[in-house]
């Protein structure tokens, strides 16, 4: 009978270590998400302005993010910046920078498309009723934009959480790396640990991401 290698999880504090590892990647994504939401709102609003310079810059920025794999960006920030500029950025900070860089782009694009999806006559009617620009935004545009935006933004959040699994590749000791360490330290006593440990990591990610995407689906249904 082959064992499924789940026993290693109950040795010492291994399960806690895995969870702590998961927290490392979650923490990176949470910080990046906070930055992305905040800056994304600002940049997204900027994008709807008719200024040609802003348009050009944001367009180029979006294209870079769209084309470059996050892993490449991670390598450039983690190894490249030290080589190029002499900045020594630690792996977790590099990850936050890269995921924010990516998140702000995606978020601002969502904000922009939600904003322009509001028909022009809504603005015009608001002005005709004598509302100021600020009033128009606060009580007419933002509430409508919000409903379109939130489900999409939550979707982006799960994508960011999933993508933070890449930080292992630049040496952050997160859940997958801890998993490898556990497999290595128990190679002799429990040769099938790879199955149990990777399955556990897989399920852990699912437990984190699934409720969030369910929530976003629900909101989308409710508000559409």
């Amino acid at each position, binding site marked *: 009978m*082959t064992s*499924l*290698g789940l026993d290693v999880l109950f040795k010492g504090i291994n399960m806690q270590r895995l969870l702590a590892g998961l927290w490392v990647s979650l923490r990176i994504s949470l910080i990046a998400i906070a930055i992305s939401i905040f800056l994304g709102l600002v940049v997204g609003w900027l994008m709807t302005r008719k200024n040609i310079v802003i348009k050009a810059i944001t367009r180029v920025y979006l*294209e870079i993010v*769209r*084309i*470059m*794999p*996050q*892993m*490449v960006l991670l*390598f*450039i920030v983690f*190894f*490249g910046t030290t*080589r*190029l500029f002499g900045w020594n950025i630690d792996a977790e900070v590099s990850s936050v920078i890269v995921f924010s860089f990516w998140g702000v782009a995606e978020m601002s694009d969502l904000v922009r498309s939600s904003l322009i999806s509001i028909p022009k006559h809504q603005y015009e009617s608001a002005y005709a009723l004598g509302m100021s620009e600020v009033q128009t935004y606060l009580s007419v545009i933002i509430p409508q934009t919000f409903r379109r935006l939130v489900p999409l933004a939550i979707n982006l959040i*799960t994508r960011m959480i*999933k*993508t933070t*699994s*890449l930080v*292992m*590749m630049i040496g952050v000791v997160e859940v*997958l790396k801890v*998993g490898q360490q556990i497999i290595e330290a128990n190679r002799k006593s429990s*040769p*099938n640990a*790879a*199955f149990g*440990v*990777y*399955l556990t*990591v*897989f399920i852990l*990610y*699912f437990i984190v*991401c*699934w409720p969030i*995407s369910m929530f976003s689906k629900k909101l989308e249904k409710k508000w559409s």
Partner: protein
Amino acid sequence: MNWEVIQSYLPLYEKAALLTLKIGWLGIAFSIILGFVCAIIRHYKIPVLHRIVGIYIELFRNTPLLIQLFFLYFGLPKIGIAIDAEFCGVLGLALLGGAYMAESFRSGLESIEPIQTESALSLGMSRTQTIWHVILPQAISSSVPAFVANIVFLLKETSVFSAISLMDLMFTAKDLIGLYSKTIECLAMLVIFYLIILLPVSIVGSIVEKKLRFAGFGE
């Protein structure tokens, strides 16, 4: 920047780019087929299968490709299912992509009003004819933007193949950095090669998106 170094690395990068392309496109092709089948199963609520497909889609949409690959490549052999790295890469990408494609395609199917099916049926078209001539063309064209976004996303995801030792662009760059410490050259070549692979897709994607808008109904 040392041009001689770049020249000497060039063949290695070319080989890696070909591998990235090969696995990427194979995976994408299978993911489209898989996504298509799954979407139809989901949309027409085919019994039993529809539940299984639902679970599959949720599982693979809510876990990272990197973890999926680790499980497929290192975990499964422990229970007797050994697969080679390239196959594993294609499989991983197809499974991940299939889940995404299925959702995009399904929302395309759902965007078509039931009245269209009813009208087609009342015109004397058979069920198959209706699906083939009325529903699918519209569903496909309305899910094209999402399809293109998925393809770009999947091609970018190939960068994690390095974790299961496929000598793709990412691994080649890392390996060369480890061997000869020419970090800047290696990173610059990495960026350029990804641009070569992804720029055309991104551009062609936006052209296709425009051309296929013809089926927009009632706008």
